[in-house]
């Protein structure tokens, strides 16, 4: 849905890195290299990014007004 603010396992704040990660991967950079650059050293934090699918912008239009 939306990137979790912290890693589920170790508690590192990761959400601030998500946009940079997405942009760099969209430019064609390797996911592993980008995560290394962002300081995501532990595999618990890395799986947070690898396994995440951002769906909030697809779901948001359905949260319409009650009118």
């Amino acid at each position, binding site marked *: *849905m*939306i*990137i*979790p*603010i*912290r*890693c589920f396992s*170790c*508690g*590192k*704040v990761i*959400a*601030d890195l*998500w*946009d940079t990660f997405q942009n760099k991967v969209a430019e064609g950079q390797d996911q592993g290299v980008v995560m290394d650059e962002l*300081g995501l050293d*532990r595999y618990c934090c890395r799986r947070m990014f690898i396994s995440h699918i951002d769906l*909030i*912008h697809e*779901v*948001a*239009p*359905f*949260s*319409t*007004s*009650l*009118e």
Partner: protein
Amino acid sequence: MKAEIITNEGNKIQILLKDAKTSEVNALRRTILSDVPKMAISRVRFEMGLIEDNGESYESINVLPDEVIAHRLAMLPIPTYYDRFCFPEEDPANEGLPEDQWGSPASQIIYHCSVRGPSKDSEEEFIVVRAGDLNVLGEVDLQIPEQYKGIPLTTVIRGQYLEFYAYAVIGRGSEHAKFIPASGVAFYQREVARLMTKGKKSKVLFDLDLTTEDGRAIDAKLFGKDGVIDDIDMVEEIRRALAHVSRGTNRDTDFGDAIVLEKVAGEFVFTYETDGALRPEEVFNRACEELSARFVRISDELDTALA
């Protein structure tokens, strides 16, 4: 126990602890996780209803439920100053009041956030509400740290608004994980790498062309005249390189114990990173204080009991 900072970059720290026991270092680790206090948002008041603005109406609904937004707010790193804030239960202004009426500038920080969805004329379909949209009611240095202002909290579309007041208080990790000041708190016994044989077996190992991350060859030269490497980072590089050819790969029998990693008695490498609410060295110092205060308390209680 002696502590020496090996590296301290940004929020990450690596400390070498000497004259220490495993149990003592583990006590420090556990203290950081459960007893070092930190600020975190613990209460949120959402503004509800319909509002009109410039001929447009906005409703307080959102793609994420309020509970999820509140939880996301709780996870944000809030700047923590021990000298300016006290625990809510120790705040004299809260004395005698029921818990839901607690709250004074001595024990809480208030953040306000108000974001409206895109107007009818706008081409944008949604607006992302970020941590930077939280405005502190008080000192500017209590604002969410710059590096975390981009954290997405939720999204508002046309006709939606999000407005809330969030109240941060100081607490301990033993109460809730949002109060834990550091992540990846770990330690290992320090090791040195020793070149045991300079004959055939070590040649077999060196012929495997193992290198460090920066491309330096792992060979006899690297070990120097005394055949020992004690630099913590270099030992780590050798450990990683050896992992590619060690037990389980069926190659280790050829070179045996050509390079041995020896543990150094009483020395530990202690690592963690903070979330930006506190500096890493502050967390360590506070953990030492908390631990020492606890032992003083125990010995006082024992003295009283045995008197």
